[in-house]
C-alpha cells in the first residue's frame, strides 16, 4: 500500500487526536505533531501548551491580525483561545518537568521496545539541539510518539535505539500510519493496525519484539 505524505500525516494526526481527553493540557512538538490540533473536535476543550510561554494556543492569525509578541515554539505567530495564559520559560518548564502536562506528542528518529526515544540528533549530520524535548519526554504524564512508520527504507522501531537518546524509558505509545504500539514491559503491544496494511507489513518493518494479540483491532478513525 502506497500512501502519499499528506495521507500519512493525516492518518497519524487523526489517530493521535483520539488519545486526548476533555480538559487535557497538551504540548505538541514541531512538524507532524502540530497537525494533531486540526483533528481535535471543536466541542472538546483541549488546551495546547507551547513551551515558549503560552497555554491555550489558538488558530493561525489572519494576516492583519498578527502580533509578533505572540508566537508558538516554532516562532510562528499564533492567536490564543479563551482561557489562555502567558508565562515565562521557568514556569513553562515547571509545567512540563513537574508533571502538569497531560500528554506530549513528539516526532522521533528512532524509538525502541524499552520506551527509549531518539529525536534530537544524528551525530555528524544533524545537531539541532534538544530544545525542550528532553524535558517534555521526562515530564509529561503521557508520551506519544507520532511518526512515519519508516524513514525511506530504514526501520525506526527498534529493539534498542542506536542514535543518541532524548530520554530513556519514557515513551507510552507509538502511532504511525500503519499501527498503534503500546510500550509494555514485555515488548511492544500491537494495539491497532491500519486495515490498509497486512500484519506482515508490520512485522517485517519493526525490529522490536512485538506482542500480537489474537484479535487484531483496526486503527481507530
Amino acid at each position, binding site marked *: 500500500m502506497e500512501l502519499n505524505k499528506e495521507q500519512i500525516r493525516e492518518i497519524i494526526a487523526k489517530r493521535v487526536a483520539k488519545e486526548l481527553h476533555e480538559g487535557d493540557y497538551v504540548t505538541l512538538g514541531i512538524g507532524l505533531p502540530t497537525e494533531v490540533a486540526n483533528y481535535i473536535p471543536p466541542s472538546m476543550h483541549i488546551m495546547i501548551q507551547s513551551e515558549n510561554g503560552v497555554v491555550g494556543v489558538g488558530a493561525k492569525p489572519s494576516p492583519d491580525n498578527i502580533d509578533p509578541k505572540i508566537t508558538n515554539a516554532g516562532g510562528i505567530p499564533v492567536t490564543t483561545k479563551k482561557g489562555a495564559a502567558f508565562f515565562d*520559560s521557568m514556569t513553562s518548564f515547571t509545567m512540563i518537568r513537574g508533571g502538569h502536562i497531560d500528554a506530549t506528542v513528539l516526532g522521533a528518529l528512532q524509538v525502541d521496545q524499552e520506551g527509549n526515544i531518539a529525536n534530537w540528533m544524528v551525530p555528524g549530520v544533524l545537531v539541532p539541539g*534538544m530544545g525542550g524535548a528532553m524535558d517534555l519526554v521526562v515530564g509529561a504524564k503521557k508520551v506519544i510518539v507520532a511518526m512515519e512508520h519508516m524513514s525511506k527504507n530504514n526501520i525506526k522501531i527498534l529493539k534498542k535505539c542506536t542514535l543518541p537518546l532524548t*530520554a530513556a524509558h519514557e515513551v507510552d505509545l507509538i502511532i504511525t500510519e500503519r499501527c498503534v504500539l503500546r510500550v509494555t514491559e514485555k515488548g511492544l503491544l500491537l494495539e491497532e493496525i491500519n486495515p490498509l496494511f497486512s500484519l506482515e507489513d508490520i512485522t517485517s518493518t519493526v525490529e522490536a519484539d512485538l506482542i500480537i494479540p489474537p484479535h487484531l483491532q483496526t486503527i481507530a478513525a
Partner: protein
Amino acid sequence: MKKIISAADAGKLIKNGASIMIGGFLKCGTPTRIIEELLAAGTHDLTLIANDTSYPDSDRGRLISEKRIKKAIVAHIGTNPETGKQFHNGEIEVELVPMGTLVERIRAGGAGLGGVLTPTGIGTVVEKGKQSLEINGKKYLLEMPLKADIALIYATRADRFGNAYLEGSTRNFNTVMATAAQTVIVETDELVDECLDPNMVTIPGVFIDYIVA
C-alpha cells in the same frame, strides 16, 4: 531611578570576551536594538547564553554569522545553520543544554542556589561528565548555575525605576536572565512617564541596571 542610556552606549558596555545572556525565544522577546549596536561596535570572542541562536540574519543569529561568538550555551541551534556549520568546523564551541535545564541553571545563578537537580538528561549524552545523585530512589543530574557579565533583556513597557512589563509570549528567558548577570540592561519598546502599576510588573526594577528606551 535607573540610568537611561542609548542602545549604542549599551552596546559599548559589552567588552570583548564577555559572557552575555540574551533574552528571547527566536525573534520573540529579543532585544534587537542593543544587538545591532553590539554588532556595529565590532565586539568579539563573546560567550552567548540564550535559548537559541535565532536565524542567520536575525538579532543574536547575526552574532554567530559575523563570528562574534566564541562559545554558545543554548538549547537549540536548528534554526541557524551557520551555528551548526561553525560548530562542525571547530570555529565555535557549542554547549547544548535541555531547555528546562538551561532556564533552571540561569535561575540558580540568579537565586544564589548551588546547582540544579533535574531528571532531564538521565540516560542520555547530557549525563556525560556530570555528577548524578540518587534522591528518594530516583536519579537526578547535578547541573551547574550559570551567570554572565551582562544580560540583555526585552520589555514591552518599562518605568524609570527599571520595572518592566512583558506582553504575550515575550517573557521566556528574559525574567530569569534579569536575575543572573553582573549588569542587566533592559531594552524597552516604551518608557512610561508614570510608574507601572506594581501589580503589572513582570520584572521588578531591583534586578535592572540600565534602560535602553
